[in-house]
């Protein structure tokens, strides 16, 4: 990824911020200059920060009539040239899902932040959960390779927002930040450096905006008003955007490229964070806020004589299949602590024959280290 160094949007130094606020600052640092959103607990704070900050940096803010309006105007603004984002929670992602598919087929870069809360449906608006891990990938119909990251700290609410934006622009996909209410409303220190690295959209006037010679390429992306006579459409289209709804060769090529443009390069995106895994006999996999408890749990297990290690998933999609396979080879059992009924645990079973034991918790409260310790001890191989 060709990254460019730019000055941070805030003066470098130490800050004490809420996770949601840090996310907004990360977006602005990444170059986001369009935000459209709709109020929803626990993501509204991102919107509130944006309404004050965007005018300060020459950006545009809009509260739309609903979440569908929000994601729609984000995509419209992206094609007008903006790095654009919205932030919501589970119910909002449900509403936005159709447009997520639209962003996939039109290859529109954008960032969608999901500050997850207890569901399904209205659920418990003010309580944390990690129940949307699958839906951001599989909610929209058809195939895709979206990118998604799960932050475990206020620092990562800032850093991973920048990273997600960069990948969105590099691969021309909708990117997700899978936060949760716990890390979203958490207040912690945040270090802002002198510079940040950002990826700017590639523009090559005259080149096809919706197809490449390579079967896994990302085309350049013009904007409205540049004389490109853009033909943006959600229908299957040829490299110039002309609808080809009866052409099987076009459908085959488009659907393959949309997936392979990310899948073939997934090693660039996948990020894991291992702790105490070098000599581990049992592994604990966790992500987001839960990983904080998981880290404490493995330290406690070590004190109790159990050689436990933690693999934190930082990126969620594309999935860290090789890292899980590798973990499975080293451990006799893998435990997955998550605030859902075993969504990532289920995914992991595809990549390892080592027993994967799900430690789900869906009572609207965060997982405690003691619960993970107990879960491991009760299910030792």
């Amino acid at each position, binding site marked *: 990824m060709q990254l460019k160094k730019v000055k941070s949007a805030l003066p470098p130094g130490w800050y004490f911020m809420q996770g949601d606020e840090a996310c907004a600052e990360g977006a602005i640092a990444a170059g986001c200059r369009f935000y459209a959103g709709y109020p929803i607990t626990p993501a509204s704070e991102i919107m509130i920060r944006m309404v004050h900050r965007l005018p300060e940096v020459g950006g*545009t803010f809009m509260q739309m009539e609903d979440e569908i309006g929000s994601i729609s*105007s984000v995509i*419209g*603004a992206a094609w*007008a040239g903006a790095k*654009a984002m919205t932030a919501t929670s589970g119910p909002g992602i449900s509403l936005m899902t159709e447009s997520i598919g639209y962003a996939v087929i039109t290859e529109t870069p954008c960032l969608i932040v999901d500050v997850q809360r207890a569901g399904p449906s209205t659920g418990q608006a003010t309580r944390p959960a990690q129940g949307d891990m699958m839906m951001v990938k599989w909610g929209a119909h058809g195939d895709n390779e979206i990118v998604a990251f799960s932050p475990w700290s206020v620092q990562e609410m800032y850093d991973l927002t920048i990273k997600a934006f960069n990948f969105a622009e590099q691969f021309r996909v909708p990117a997700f930040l899978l936060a949760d209410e716990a890390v979203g409303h958490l207040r912690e220190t945040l270090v802002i450096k002198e510079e940040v690295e950002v990826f700017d959209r590639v523009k090559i006037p005259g080149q096809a905006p919706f197809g490449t010679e390579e079967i896994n390429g990302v085309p350049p992306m013009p904007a409205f008003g540049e004389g490109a006579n*853009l033909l943006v459409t959600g229908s299957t289209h040829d490299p110039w955007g*002309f*609808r080809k709804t009866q052409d099987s060769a076009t459908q085959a090529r488009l659907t393959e490229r949309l997936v392979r443009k990310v899948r073939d390069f997934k090693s660039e995106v996948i990020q894991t964070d291992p702790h105490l895994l070098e000599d581990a006999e049992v592994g604990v996999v966790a992500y987001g806020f839960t990983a904080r408890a998981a880290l404490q749990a493995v330290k406690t297990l070590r004190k109790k004589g159990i050689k436990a290690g933690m693999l934190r998933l930082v990126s969620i999609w594309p999935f860290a299949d090789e890292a899980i396979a590798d973990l499975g080879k080293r451990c006799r059992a893998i435990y997955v602590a998550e605030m859902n009924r075993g969504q990532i645990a289920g995914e992991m079973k595809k990549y390892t024959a080592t027993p994967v034991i799900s430690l789900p918790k869906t009572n609207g409260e965060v997982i405690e280290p003691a619960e993970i310790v107990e879960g491991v001890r009760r299910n030792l191989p």
Partner: protein
Amino acid sequence: MNEKIFQMINAQAFPTPFCPGCGHGILMNAVLRAFAELEYDLKQTLFVSGIGCAAWIPSPHFKADTLHTLHGRAIAYATGAKLFNPKLKVIVISGDGDLSSIGGNHLIHAARRNMELTVVCANNSIYGMTGGQVASTTPLGSLTTTTPKGNPDRPFDLCKLVEAAGATFVARHPVATPIPLTRTLKKAIAHRGFSFVEVLSPCPTQFGRRNAFRSPFAMIQALKNTCVSLERAKGLSPEELEGKVLVGEFVGPGKNN
């Protein structure tokens, strides 16, 4: 079709996929004529549409930036593009079901905001592309595939709806009278605020055939007979106005009929 209009279209996309006699083709003609007469630079013009036959008017036929979106969402996508680049002239061209049924919420909010946006609603009173189902604009009693015993519901008066929501330019014309239609379209496009033009555009295939219209011309003729300009309506009695549709410019600076 004159030279100017020819320069504004992607000729390779013609002949159009529209049915013979489709009103949307006549509307396409009128929109292009309006732009030709206004001498607008299409380079800074963005056409946004949803899903349905009317949404295919600009995409892929216009040689300009076109954004073909999701069912009902054209106005929301257009809002984002306009907000980020206010220099763009943004025109939404979509159908009655798309704009007022599934898209109704976005329509009334955009009208309320009075953002500079022109919405051309091609109203054929039916969901044509999917085979002729009842729409929010289908007249009471009409036969459609989902109202085989006649539509039990009343239709929207789209102009009244959008006016109530706050639009500052509201007009209605049938495609049967292309000269007033083009004149109004030009005003709507130039209007500095939210402009809405409802265009009565017949669907001979899905609506016409099921409701005893024998040809595209018969529907054009029917429009000429039922549409009454505001000016002419002033001199007519309530009995004479029974079953008629008022057309003209209802809201707007310097409106005429």
